């Protein structure tokens, strides 16, 4: 699963010379396919966790611990605002608001797909196999690595830290939605302050 997500990111980097749109669409499609595939595979027993019973119980436990939807959304909004806080003190970029909406839409889709794949499918698989701590750390590592081709080594510590925070948010709320909200809000800030 981790290798598939990383391969999708590598494919995106390879396709970048053919245009940002094409590479982004292919990347998004790969993440969607990975999430869909994992959704089907989740019904199968996990050999490493001692069979399907434990895995299913873990999933049930995860779902039963899930925070209420409104509370989870609020948590996502708060974490997004906290992640955005350090950049809002910077100089405004003056990018035109009219061009923001199409960029914001695609940014939200990609952020949500990344969260569905990493904090959804990948987290669930790692959590079943090795527990939540391993799931959070593995998710943060994959999150940092998938951004390596685009932003280079300099951005990796920050991306790993944000991946850790989003993994923690996933574990606390039991949901992917707040992670997608926090991620999207933090991304949108780049339009105004980057």
């Amino acid at each position: 699963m981790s290798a598939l997500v990383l391969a999708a990111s590598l494919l995106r980097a390879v396709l970048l010379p053919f245009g940002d749109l094409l590479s982004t669409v292919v990347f998004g499609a790969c993440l969607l396919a990975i999430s869909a595939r994992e959704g089907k595979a989740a019904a199968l027993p996990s050999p490493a966790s001692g069979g399907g019973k434990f895995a299913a119980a873990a999933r049930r436990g995860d779902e039963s611990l899930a925070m209420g939807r409104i509370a989870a959304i609020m948590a996502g909004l708060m974490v997004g605002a906290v992640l955005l806080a350090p950049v809002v003190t910077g100089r405004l970029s003056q990018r035109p608001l009219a061009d923001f909406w199409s960029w914001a839409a695609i940014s939200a889709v990609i952020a949500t797909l990344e969260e569905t794949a990493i904090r959804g499918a990948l987290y669930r698989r790692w959590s079943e196999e090795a527990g939540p701590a391993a799931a959070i750390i593995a998710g943060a590592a994959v999150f940092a690595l998938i951004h390596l081709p685009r932003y280079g080594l300099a951005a990796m510590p920050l991306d790993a830290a944000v991946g850790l925070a989003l993994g923690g948010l996933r574990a606390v709320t039991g949901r992917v939605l707040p992670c997608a909200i926090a991620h999207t809000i933090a991304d949108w800030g780049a339009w105004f302050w980057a």
Partner: protein
Amino acid sequence: MSRGRRVGALALVVGTVAAMLLHGRPSSSPIYDGIIVPPAPYRYESPPSNVRNRNQKPLGGQATLPVNNGQVSGGGVQTDDAQVIMFFGVGTFKVPPGATSVQCSIEPDPNPPEPPAGIDLRGNVYRIGCVAQPSGAPVTLTGTFHLTMRLPPGATNDIRYDDGQSWHTLTTLFAPGGDPYASVNAAGFGEYAAMARTGAQGSGDNIFSTLGRYAEFYGILAFVIIFGVIAVVQELRRRRQQQIPKPRPKR
């Protein structure tokens, strides 16, 4: 609180604090998703009428390069809005005796020299110079330095250099993929500007690029709609499957 949540809360706090601390580093990227943020609008010293309302003044930049054993070991300078960037190699300057450093500056020129006949300025004219410190005496160049300029929308044929007497055409290398940057090997201090023949059409003005712009917009729209529909269908299917009661095992 379950163990999973305790671990999650710890990761959330540690990750958030680390992210806030790392944001302070200038090399850090503030985005996490991999979408390229389009560049901020070009800053004009004398903006065209259609962007006058939202134009911001261009910024200058300067840097101090230390002198070691009588020579500068190289370095770079850029304007604060990153519209002009220049790099110097080792030994590019000849510095006067006693100099401890060289201060280089790039400033947009509000009163630039007139361009040659039949040629238009494209964007800003920048005044580039370096002086020795602490004396303020001029330094001389022993070679070329690398200069990259951001180009405004529209046509650009080349970057030219004015040495105080006339404009000189420089061999200009344009960035691939439509990126609005061009670079030259600059041979002197003075005024630098992007220029185009009067009436030259920008690459963004022909029929193919116009179609390409629309294709990109509708491509993004289609992308959002398709993935949105797939996500909604998947969610509905998941909910439907959850509602179907499982058959009881036969005894």
